[in-house]
C-alpha cells in the first residue's frame, strides 16, 4: 500500500550509491544523497513498519506451510527490503527505536496489526489462499510503484523500474506456485 514511498526512499539511497560508485576514481568520491521532506521522512518510518508486515506474513505463512518453498525465497528478499528501509531511516535520521523487528507478527500500531492479522488469517484458509495472499501483496506493490513513478525524476523512475522488476519476479514465483498447486 505505502510500500511505494519506501521504495522511493530506497531509490534515493540507490542513487546515492550509484553516484558513489560512479565516482570511484581517485579523489572523485562524491555524495549525492537527496534530502527528504519531513513528509517523506514520516513515510519512511511508516513504511519501515509496513515492510515488517509483508516480511512477517511470509515468515508466518512459510512456517504454516513448510513444504511450500516460495515463502522461504521471498521472505529473505523482503528482509532485504526491510533492511534497506531501515538503512534509509538511519541515513535520514529517522528514529526507529519504537519498532521491534525481532517480534514476528507483533505490531504496536493497531492498523498494522490488523493488516498483518487479515493477511495471515486469509492465508491460513488453505495453502492456495496463502499463495493468493502473496500474489495480492506483490500485485499491490507493483500497482503502488506505478503510481509512485508519477512526478518523480527520470533517474528515480529508472530505479523504480528495477524494483518493480523484483516485485514481478515475486509475483511470477507466487503464480508459478499457484499453477503448480492447481495441477
Amino acid at each position, binding site marked *: 500500500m505505502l510500500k511505494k514511498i519506501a521504495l522511493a526512499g530506497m531509490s534515493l539511497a540507490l542513487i546515492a550509491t550509484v553516484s558513489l560508485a560512479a565516482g570511484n576514481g581517485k579523489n572523485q568520491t562524491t555524495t549525492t544523497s537527496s534530502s527528504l521532506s519531513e513528509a517523506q521522512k514520516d513515510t519512511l*518510518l511508516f513504511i519501515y513498519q509496513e515492510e515488517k508486515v509483508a516480511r512477517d506474513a511470509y515468515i508466518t505463512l512459510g512456517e504454516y506451510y513448510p513444504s511450500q518453498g516460495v515463502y522461504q525465497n521471498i521472505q529473505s528478499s523482503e528482509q532485504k527490503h526491510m533492511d534497506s528501509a531501515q538503512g534509509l531511516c538511519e541515513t535520514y535520521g529517522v528514529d526507529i527505536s519504537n519498532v521491534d523487528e525481532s517480534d514476528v507478527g507483533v505490531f*504496536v*500500531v*493497531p492498523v498494522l496489526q*490488523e*493488516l498483518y492479522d487479515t*493477511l495471515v*488469517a*486469509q492465508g491460513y484458509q488453505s495453502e492456495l489462499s496463502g499463495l493468493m495472499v502473496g500474489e495480492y501483496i506483490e500485485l499491490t506493490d507493483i500497482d503502488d510503484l506505478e503510481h509512485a513513478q508519477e512526478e518523480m525524476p527520470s533517474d528515480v523512475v529508472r530505479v523504480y523500474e528495477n524494483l518493480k522488476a523484483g516485485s514481478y519476479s515475486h509475483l511470477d514465483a507466487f503464480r508459478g506456485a499457484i499453477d503448480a498447486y492447481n495441477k
Partner: protein
Amino acid sequence: MRLAVLVTLLFYVLLAQGSELSRPDEAVKTYYKAMNSADIEALKEIMVPSSFKITMEVWALSKALKDKSFAKKLKRYGTDKEIDLEVQEAVRTKLLHASPKEITDLRVIALGKSRCMVRYKEDGKQKQLFTSLDKQVWKIDYKAGRKID
C-alpha cells in the same frame, strides 16, 4: 474598540478551551470509541485524511481478499463517492462484528509542538498511536511518529 477587544479575548478563551478538549489522549479515546461503535463518520473526524484512508483500506481488505469484484472497487477507493460509501459500509459491517477493545494506561509523549505519541494498553497489549495538531485539534496521524520541531 472595547467591544473588539472583548470579542478577541472571547475568541482566544474559546480557542484555548477547544484545545484543552482535544488532547492527544482524548483523540485516541475517541478513535477507539468510534471503532467500537462502528461509527465511520466519527472516525473520519478524528483522523487526518491519509490515515483515515489507510484505515478503510486495511479494514476492507478481508472482504477484498474473498471478493474480486470488491477488490477492484477497493483499489479505486478515494476516487468515486459511491465506491467510498460501499467500502465504508463494508468496514462498518466488519467493525460491528469485531470484539470491542478496551484501552487503559494512556500516556502522552510529546514529539514536538504539533505531535504526540500516545502509548497505552489495548486489551492488555502494549500499543501506540501518533497524533498531530490539525487546526487546533489533535487527530490520529499514523505517520506522525517522528519527533519534529
